[in-house]
């Protein structure tokens, strides 16, 4: 029998303290406004709190949290109502700290901006597989657990996503990885070196 007793509360606290930073980073990388990451993190851990007597064991819990956070992001993008106003302090703090990672006004012409723009043009699943691989440093089997697909599907997706991103970047970046001078007509981004 399960019960939300002290052991489960401690387990939840351990889960929270152990994974808060990772979850916040995950959310911050995927929201338009940093303060929205507070909602994603708060809602994710609220779900974990309510399920604390049934949390996955070991490292699986971290992957499960990513999966929940992914759903929270999807809910947020659909504009769904939040039922719980949690984390106002975190929201305010993130809003106040926004300049830490706000894009430099000139960065629209940098290599970094080009890569971000190309990532944004990928399909959701392709982008998520790439992001989880590089930013969250997850293995395909771990990504499979987050996304609820097989590891083979992740590997296939990863290969395809890299190919597509390479295609999108191909004309923009020189082999050295430096930004190419000039611009390409059409939808391609105009680039300048050293911006």
């Amino acid at each position, binding site marked *: *029998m*399960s*019960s*939300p007793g002290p052991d489960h*509360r401690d387990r*939840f*606290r351990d889960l*929270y*303290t152990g994974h808060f930073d990772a979850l*916040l*980073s995950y959310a*911050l*990388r995927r929201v338009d406004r940093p*303060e929205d990451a*507070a*909602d994603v993190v*708060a*809602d994710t*851990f*609220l*779900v974990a*709190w*309510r*399920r604390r007597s049934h949390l996955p064991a070991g490292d699986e819990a971290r992957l499960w949290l990513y999966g929940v956070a992914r*759903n929270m992001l999807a*809910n947020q993008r*659909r*504009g*769904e*109502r*939040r039922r719980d*106003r*949690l*984390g106002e*302090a*975190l929201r*305010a*703090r993130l809003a106040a700290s926004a300049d830490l*990672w706000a894009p430099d006004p000139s960065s629209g012409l940098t290599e*970094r*901006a080009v*890569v*971000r723009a190309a*990532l944004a043009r990928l399909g*959701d*699943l392709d982008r998520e597989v790439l*992001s989880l691989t*590089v*930013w969250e440093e997850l293995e395909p089997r771990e990504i*499979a657990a987050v*996304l*609820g*697909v097989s590891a*083979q599907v992740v590997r*296939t997706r990863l290969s395809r996503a890299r190919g597509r*991103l*390479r295609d999108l*970047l191909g004309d923009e*970046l020189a082999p050295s*990885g430096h930004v190419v001078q000039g611009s390409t007509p059409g939808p391609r981004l105009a680039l300048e070196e050293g911006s």
Partner: protein
Amino acid sequence: MTDHDLDLLIRDADPFPASHSLDLDGADAALLAEICARPAVDRLSLLQRRRRRTRQASALRTRLAVSVATAAALTAAIGVPAIIAEHRAGSAGPEAGGREATRPGPGPVSTAPVTYAAAAVRVARANPRVLVTAPGWTVRSVEGFDPDAGETTFQLGPDQWHDETFPGGSSHVNEAPRLEVTWYPRDQYDAYRADRAREPHLQHVTLFGQRAQMISYSATDHAVMLPPQGEVFLELRGNVGDEAAFRQFLADHVEQVDIRTWLAAMPSSVVTAGNLDAAVREVLAGVPLPPGFDASSLGRGLALDSYQFGARVTGMVACGWIEEWQRAHESGDTAAADRAAAALATSRDWKVLHDMDAEGDYPEVVWQYADAVATAGSDGSGKAGLDGYRSALGCH
């Protein structure tokens, strides 16, 4: 550019690199305290339910994508029963295989011959089977439909959507009168009861002859939790008025019914033989069908949620079109191959896939193979993109 080079570029484009450190000024600890101060599990929240559905969908997707997903394995994986439970009103028993007799409940008795899925009957048999019998009330939705966990939402009339603005955003809220009936595993009852005991507005009522806990979450939001019956216990939560109105509603309009009556009230998202045809028609609206498509081969008696059912049906269609494309391609029938490719390309517009997309990634798999066919080329040079489609889509 190697994969390594590419990954370095992506890493450099990380909007929030690990090198960033934030001074949260204790906001993280404050959030932890806020969460831990929340009343313990009060109900399956919308978010939890969505997660549960997504987890179910994920399980299906995983199974669909596993390379060993043979037709038989797939059938077992998504819970399509091999046995059809058939019963007729007034007969001895609707149970799967006719092995058990029905214990008719006090509610209304249906008179139409109905065939139910064995899996659905298993859920019904394990359930206290509560229905709202007031005029105009119907089952609006079913969230999960397992013997030990699930929820039916009853609603009076159509949805009543209102825009609601709150700090940080706005949302669309359905304010129609509703009663949510949730069933949980019996072994969680003590934990839930203890949680409820900490609620400030806890009272007790008698429902179905049982003493039950009643909580008022707000002036018009009340819930009753019943002791276990069998392997589950029920929680009924509704917004039908003030506390007195809620009590009266439970007394006058909520009944326990027999298995067939309960199943007959379920919507198409719980697919039984009785509503299978209508459910298939709904899923296939606007979907071009491949040559020889036969919906009857879906089998009779499905008990799937809408995501799983959508995956089952659209997978059949996608498989049929890919097979047609392959046949046409190999026989040099360019026109037929083009037709198949064009039909698959319409999958981007299939409403059912867009509905499913919010819950899981099966639509992505369909679109992936539709794209693969579109880019395979008339010479078939790109056919490698179709590798593994049968297991990924769950083709029979």
